[in-house]
Structure formats: structure tokens, C-alpha cells
């Protein structure tokens, strides 16, 4: 994750991910970003910058990039009303039915591993139309056949109110689309250095593979400059460690 993709250029993997995610946000009215989400946060800020500020972005934990005035509940109330178009969720485990696990491995009462918890996923996954899953460790340990704990299910019974759900999943190896009818992931593109075979070797669930799977495009020079300049500065307010590691930026005092 920390190395540049030396065979390609000086573009870092994080920059490809940010660029790819931003491409799924262009034209949206309002994108919200939750906890522990530096890559999605940077992508949302990039989409906003490219929209001429027409896309609103709310970043949890930010004072500069968050316009909510009614406390911690407002993000959820806003989402419940359909005022948030896109959100990001991850999981210690994610399975082939797009169920996510943010809680534990093994028996939840006496777990082998315990993670922070479900955050807002038990609600936002249901009500935000375009939930983009991200998991920056793509292995059979993380992308599994069945999660040990369902923080939020990928899909619901027909009588459950569910305007929201998975839209795509991005990992450090590839991008998946979601076929909502068939409730399956579909391989959309592989990041530089990966192949259809390497994805199969590292994925613990079944998914569809089209005849043609392109390589995930790199950001162009203009996008890179925007990312490394303005966006790096903006994300440093919330994720100073990330901004330093990826963009070499120290947070301004």
C-alpha cells in the first residue's frame, strides 16, 4: 500500500483509488464520509473540487468540511430523508452477499479478534442509495464466503425498507460492480500489477468475471496536481497521518 507503482509511474495506489472513487461521485448532490475513511474522504473532496463546488461533502470529524449544525444525529436524519446520495463502508470481513462485519471474528461474546464496531452501518447501508464498499486489504482473510458477524446485510427481504445498498466495492487490487438483481459482485477492473487470476487467488467468495476486464485507469496529470495540492491540504485537517504518508504533507498549524 505504501509503495508507488514503480512499473507504471510515480502514481501511488492510494491516488488510483481516490481517482476511481471520485469518478463514482461526479454529479452527485451530497456525499458523506464517515469514520476511518481517509481514501473515501479524499475522493469526496476531489469530486467536490471538480464539480465547481456543486457537490456538497460532509466529512465526519471535520470542522472545515462539515456543514451540519444539529449534532451527531443530523447525518443520519439527513440520510434517512434521502438527502445523502453516497456513503462509504468497510468491513474487517466482507462476503459475497455484500454483508459487512465491523465487529468481531469468532464468537462475539468471546471473540478471537475484536474491531471498533458497526458505527452507522446498521442504518446508512439501508438508506443511502450509493454505498461504496472499500477494503484496502484484499485477501481471502478479508473477502470471505460468509462474515462472522453481520453489522449490516448487503441485501434485504422485499418487505424491508431498503432504498440503499451496495453500489461498488474497491480494494487495493481491483474494483467490483454490484449486480443488484443477482446479488453478486462483478469484476469491473484490476489495478495495475494485478490480473484476473491474481484477483481469483485472493478472493474468498464467488463473483462474476466478464470476458473483458480492463486495467483501472490512472489519474491524469491535472487530477494528480489537484489531489496532491488542494485535496492533500483539505484531508490533512482530519487525517494528518494519512496526508503525511501519502502526500508528504505536514498539517499546517
Amino acid at each position: 500500500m505504501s509503495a508507488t507503482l514503480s512499473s507504471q509511474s510515480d502514481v501511488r495506489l492510494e491516488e488510483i483509488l481516490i481517482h476511481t472513487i471520485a469518478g463514482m461521485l461526479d454529479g452527485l448532490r451530497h456525499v458523506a464520509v464517515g469514520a476511518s475513511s481517509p481514501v473515501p474522504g479524499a475522493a469526496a473532496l476531489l469530486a467536490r473540487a471538480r464539480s465547481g463546488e456543486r457537490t456538497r461533502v460532509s466529512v465526519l470529524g471535520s470542522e472545515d468540511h462539515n456543514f451540519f449544525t444539529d449534532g451527531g444525529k443530523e447525518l443520519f436524519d439527513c440520510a434517512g430523508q434521502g438527502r445523502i446520495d453516497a456513503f462509504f463502508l468497510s468491513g474487517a470481513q466482507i462476503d459475497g452477499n455484500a454483508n459487512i462485519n465491523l465487529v468481531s471474528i469468532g464468537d462475539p461474546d468471546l471473540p478471537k479478534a475484536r474491531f471498533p464496531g458497526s458505527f452507522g452501518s446498521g442504518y446508512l447501508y439501508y438508506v443511502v442509495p450509493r454505498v461504496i464498499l472499500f477494503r484496502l486489504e484484499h485477501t481471502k482473510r478479508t473477502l470471505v464466503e460468509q462474515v462472522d458477524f453481520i453489522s449490516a446485510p448487503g441485501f434485504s427481504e422485499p418487505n424491508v425498507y431498503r432504498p440503499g445498498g451496495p453500489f461498488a466495492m474497491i480494494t487495493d487490487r481491483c474494483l467490483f460492480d454490484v449486480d443488484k438483481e443477482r446479488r453478486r459482485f462483478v469484476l469491473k477492473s484490476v489495478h495495475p500489477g494485478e490480473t484476473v487470476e491474481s484477483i481469483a487467488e485472493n478472493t474468498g467468495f464467488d463473483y462474476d468475471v466478464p470476458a473483458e476486464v480492463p486495467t483501472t485507469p490512472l489519474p491524469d496529470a491535472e487530477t494528480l496536481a489537484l489531489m496532491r495540492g488542494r485535496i492533500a491540504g483539505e484531508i490533512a485537517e482530519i487525517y494528518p497521518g494519512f496526508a503525511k504518508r501519502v502526500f508528504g504533507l505536514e498539517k499546517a498549524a
Partner: protein
Amino acid sequence: MTELLTDLDALAAKVRDGAKIALPPDYSGCANALWRAVIRRGVKDLHLIGVPVFGYHGDLLIGAGCVAVAETSAVTLGEHGLAPRFTAAVKAGSITVKDATCPAIHAGLQAAERGAPFSVMRGLIGSDILARRDDWKVIDNPFAENDPVVAIPALTPDLAVFHAAKADRHGNVWIGVRRELMVMAHAARDTLVTVEEIVDGDLMADPATKAGTIPGLYVTAMVEAKRGSWPQGLPATDLAVDQAHLARYAEMARTEEGFAAYLAEFVVGREAAE
């Protein structure tokens, strides 16, 4: 009337064994100086409620053996990773976790603040969060056909505890846009506050400050505590997060011995300074 105390330990004495306590998230206003005083007192069996999550302060209390129950949507040190003492306590089975999702915590507090028995919410159905909460119920929406919703009972903390930038001598506390603190104060039976500064005058006199002010009606007791959120920052002030210290905490708290050394240096060792 709000009790204006002059001594942090007098406020800490109001945190009793077994109390159910609403805690703000790290980016809101954490009463960390008070929690250090509470740990020095040796309080036990607290039931912490993350509104809707908690971080450093809850991990510190768990590590110090003050906590029996953690009811929260998450526990995290943010960029500094997993909360080490929470993680260790869960794996050892030494605390009970009531996992939630953020809006369910807000829904429970909102029922409490309006004196209603419960709130209803979307989401949750089909999750293991719901499956493991026998205090939450799936009910039929009485206004529609075949539309299950989740009923969340009123969540009434014994205490809401937080740090804020300023208050006046009438007990009015200015919180700006951090309005989860307002909901916490409304919902809780008692509210204990530490503030950077107790100012002269009346924060309710000017609509600009009144809009972001918790009336003294809800505030049981408070005390001035300079830099009382350290090592966390405080919104709308120049108090920034002490990232280097949190990194050090995350490192030291990885082991029981390291955590004991941390307590000795930064909790017990700070008594004179606080």
C-alpha cells in the same frame, strides 16, 4: 441551581459506582481531566454509552478497571488504531459490550429527552446487531401494511459528562454546534460539565450565543478545568488534538504493563497539576 464547584475532585465525587454515563465522541468535548480524577478515586462498574461512539477516554476508563458495560456503536482511537484496552477487555470477557449503530443511540436518547417510551427507526433488520439486542423490538408500522420497523426504548443516562469551551455563573454552558451534547444533557438525569472558562455575564442574553447554549436548567454541577479535554482537542477553541501523545498512548496501552506505566505517569502523576 447549577452547583459551581471550585475543585475537580468534588465534581469527580459525583460519579458513583455503577452509573450509566453518556460520553461524547473524541471530536466533541471530552472531560478528560475529570476522568483522570475519577480514575484516581477508583470508581467501579460504570456503564458507558458512546454518543454514538467513544475513544480515548473510554479506553482509559476500561483499562483502569472502572467499566462493566460498554454500550456503543464503536470504540476507536481514530488514526491511532484500535482502542487497545477495550479490545483486550472484550477478548478477555471482562466487560459486556452492547453493540449498537449510531442512529439507534441517538434514537434512544431522543426518546428519553422527550419523555417517550421509545423511538422507531429504519435499518437494522437482518443484522446481528439487532439479533443480539433483546431490548430492541421489531414492530409493525401501525400506519402501513407489512412494514417492519425497529423500536428503540428510551435511553436515560444517569449522567451526561463533557467538557465545553465556556459557561456563565448561572450554569448556562456554550457548546456551539456540538449539539449531541445538548441531547445528552436533555436525556440524562444529571449533567456534569468541565469548562475552559467561566465567564462573567449571561450567555442567554445574546441570541448568537443562546442558540448554542445548554440552559443551566439541565446542568447539575460544573467546574473550571483549563485544557480539560487534553489530550483531545476542543471544537471552536485553539485546543488541538495532541496527536503525539495519543500515538504514545496507543503504543503504551498495547500491553497491561505499558498501560500501568501510562496510568502512573499521566493519570496518577498528574494529580498535582490538576
